[in-house]
C-alpha cells in the first residue's frame, strides 16, 4: 500500500514538472532568455557569483529603462560550471535546451573554451567577462566575444612593471596548473627572460592547497626580488600572502587578475599591504561605475567583486545589441555587437572583429586596505 502511495506521489510530482515546462514554453515567444555560466560552487564561487550578479543587474537596468521592444521579459538562467570543463559543456547543452540566445561566461578559460565550441554549434552568442587565455578568441569562432583583457598582454605588462618601476633583478614564479594560471605564468617567465630578469624558479602548487609552507621555504632560500603569484583564486592567493609574510619573506609580492579581488584584502588584512596586482583599468570615479556600484550594493549588500563590472558590461553589450537589432537572430546580433561603442562600467567597449575588446592592464597596489591604481601599462606612467 505504501509503495502504491509513493508511486502515485512520484508520478504526480513528475506530472507537475511537465506541466510547469509546458507553461513556460507557451510564452517563450516574448521572453528574451540569456544564460550565465560561472562557478557558483567550489573554490572559485566568489568570482562566479560576481558574474551572475553583474548580469542580473544589467537586466534590471535594461528593464528599468523600458526593456527591449518586442520582449515582455528577460529571463536569466544561471549555470554552475564549477570551473570544470565537463560540467561547463553540460551547462552549455542545458542552456541550448532552454533556448537561450546569449550567454555571459564562462569564468575559467579551461571551461570557456570547450563550452564555447558547444554553443557555437547552435550559433549562440557567448561573451566572456573573465577568460583571459588568448585561445578564447584565437579560434575564429564567429559568436565569441571577450570583455576583459588577454594574458599575452597581461604578462608583458607585468614584466614591464617589474623592470621599469620595481627594477627587479630576479623573480620566483608560482602557479597552480590551470590553463589560465599556468599559461600566464609561462608568459611571465618568457617575457622576464627576454627583459633580462633572472627567473630563479617556476614552481607549481595544486588547486585547493592551503599549506604553502614548503614552497615558500624554497622562495625564502632563493631570495628573489619579486614573488609572482599566479593562482586561479583570490582566497588561495590570500593564504599564500599571509604565509609568505609570516615566514618573513621580504620579496615584493605580485599577483594577477584572478588573485585581484577585494576578498583578498579582507582575508589577508595587513599582510597584503604593498602587494601589487595586474588588472584591467576600471575607473572607480567614473559616473557609470558609481551608478553600477550603488545598484550592486543595494542588491547584494557587497561592493562589486573583481569581475562584476565586466559581467555587467558583457550582459549590457548583448542586451543593447539585441535592442539595436530588434531580433535575437545571431548573425544580426553579431553585427550589432560589432557596431557597439558605449561607455560601460569597466571601460569604453568596442569589440573588434575577432571578438576582443582590447586590454587595458594597470598595476594596482594595496594601500590602506584597498587596491589603488599605481602604474598604467599603456602609458607607462604612475598614477
Amino acid at each position, binding site marked *: 500500500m505504501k509503495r502504491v502511495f509513493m508511486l502515485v506521489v512520484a508520478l504526480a510530482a513528475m506530472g507537475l514538472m511537465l506541466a510547469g515546462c509546458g507553461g513556460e514554453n507557451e510564452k517563450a515567444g516574448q521572453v528574451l532568455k540569456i544564460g550565465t555560466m560561472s562557478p557558483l560552487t567550489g573554490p572559485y564561487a*566568489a568570482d562566479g557569483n560576481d558574474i551572475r550578479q553583474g548580469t542580473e543587474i544589467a537586466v534590471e537596468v535594461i528593464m528599468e529603462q523600458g526593456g527591449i521592444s518586442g520582449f515582455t521579459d528577460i529571463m536569466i538562467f544561471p549555470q554552475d560550471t564549477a570551473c570544470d570543463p565537463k560540467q561547463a559543456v553540460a551547462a552549455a547543452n542545458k542552456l541550448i535546451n532552454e533556448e537561450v540566445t546569449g550567454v555571459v561566461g564562462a569564468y575559467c578559460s579551461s571551461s570557456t573554451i570547450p563550452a564555447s565550441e558547444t554553443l557555437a554549434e547552435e550559433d549562440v552568442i557567448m561573451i566572456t567577462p573573465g577568460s583571459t587565455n588568448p585561445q578564447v578568441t584565437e579560434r575564429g569562432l564567429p559568436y565569441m566575444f571577450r570583455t576583459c583583457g588577454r594574458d599575452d598582454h597581461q604578462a608583458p605588462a607585468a614584466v614591464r612593471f617589474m623592470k621599469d618601476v620595481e627594477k627587479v633583478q630576479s623573480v620566483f614564479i608560482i602557479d597552480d596548473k590551470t590553463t589560465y594560471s599556468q599559461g600566464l605564468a609561462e608568459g611571465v617567465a618568457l617575457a622576464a627572460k627576454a627583459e633580462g630578469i633572472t627567473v630563479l624558479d617556476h*614552481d607549481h602548487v595544486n588547486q*585547493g592547497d*592551503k*599549506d604553502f609552507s*614548503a*614552497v615558500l621555504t624554497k622562495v625564502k632560500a632563493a631570495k628573489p626580488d619579486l614573488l609572482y603569484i599566479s593562482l586561479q583564486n583570490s582566497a588561495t592567493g*590570500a593564504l599564500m600572502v599571509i604565509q609568505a609574510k*609570516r615566514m618573513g619573506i621580504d620579496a615584493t609580492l605580485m599577483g594577477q587578475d584572478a588573485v585581484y579581488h577585494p576578498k583578498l584584502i579582507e582575508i589577508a588584512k595587513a599582510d597584503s599591504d604593498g602587494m601589487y596586482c595586474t588588472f584591467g583599468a576600471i575607473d572607480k570615479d567614473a559616473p557609470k561605475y558609481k551608478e553600477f556600484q550603488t545598484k550592486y550594493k543595494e542588491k547584494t549588500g557587497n561592493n562589486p567583486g573583481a569581475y562584476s563590472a565586466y559581467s555587467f558590461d558583457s550582459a549590457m553589450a548583448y542586451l543593447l545589441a539585441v535592442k539595436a537589432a530588434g531580433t535575437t537572430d545571431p548573425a544580426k546580433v553579431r553585427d550589432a555587437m560589432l557596431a557597439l561603442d558605449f561607455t560601460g562600467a569597466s571601460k569604453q567597449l568596442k569589440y573588434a572583429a575577432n571578438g576582443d575588446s582590447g586590454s587595458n592592464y594597470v598595476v594596482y597596489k594595496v594601500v590602506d586596505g584597498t587596491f589603488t591604481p599605481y602604474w598604467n601599462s599603456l602609458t607607462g606612467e604612475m598614477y
Partner: protein
Amino acid sequence: MEFFIQQLINGITLGGVYALIALGYTMVYGIIQLINFAHGEFFAAGGYMGVILISYLAAQGLHPYACLGISLVLSMGYCALLAMAVERLAYKPLRHASRLAALLSALGMSIFLQNGLMLTQGVYDKPYPTEITSGGFEWGLVSVSYMQIFIVALTAFLLVGLNVLVFKTRIGRAMRATSQDKIMSALVGINSNRIIAITFAIGAGLAAAAGIMVGLYYGSVNYSMGFVPGIKAFAAAVLGGIGNITGALVGGLIIGMVEIFAAGYISGEYKDVFAFIILIGVLYFRPTGIMGENVDDTRV
C-alpha cells in the same frame, strides 16, 4: 641544513593537523568498522564555529587568548553534539545493514553537511582574526611561529588526554570492550549505543580543534576545506593501521612530512602523488598499516 630544519618544522605542523583529524577516523573505524567520510566536514564545521565565536567574543572585549580558549572548548562541544546527531540520524539506523549502505550514508552526509555550510555561511572564505597568531622566532632561514608551537603543543596535549581517556577510565574500558565484541560487551552491561555515540563525539571534537588551528594558522576557513584534509587524514589513519590511536599520530606525521619534503625538494605539484605512493606502498607490503600488529590490544 637550515632549509631542511625549516621543512621539518613545516612537516610536523601539517602532520599534527592531519593526526588530529585522523584520530576521529581511526576511533570510529575501530569501534564500528565504518569509514566516516563525513568526518572532514566536522573539521570544517569546527573551523567555522571557531571563527564565529572568536569574532563574537573579541567584540565583547575579551583578551584574544581567552577568546581562543573559550571558542576552542565551545566549538569542540558543538562538533561533538553535531557528530552525535549525525550518528543518530545517518548511521544508527543502518547499524545492521550492509557495510556499503553505511558507507554511502556517510558519503551522503558529507555532501549534505558541506552544502549546509555553504548555504548558511556563504561561498566566500571567512577570515580569522590574525592578531592572535602573529609573531614567532627566527634564526636565519628558520622561522617558527607561535602558531606552529601552539598547534604542536595542543596536538600533543589532546593526544595524551585521549590516551588517558581510552586506557585509564571506565568509558575508555567500555570503548575498548565494545570495539572487541559489541554483543558480549552488551551482555555484561555496556550500553554500546551510548559508547558509539561518545566515540563519534570525541572524534568530532578533535577534528573541530584541528579546524580552528588550521583556520588560525592559514588565516581563513572555507566551506569546502574539509574534503582534502579529510582524504589525507583517512590516508594517515590507514597508513598507521586503522583502528590504532598511536598509528593515527604516526600516519599523520608521515603524510605531513612526505608532502612537505616532496614539495620542498621536488616540486609542489608532486606532493600529493608522493603522499599516496607511500600509502600504497605500505598497504602493499604491510596491509595492516605500520602499527597494525598490535591492533587487538590498542584499538579503541
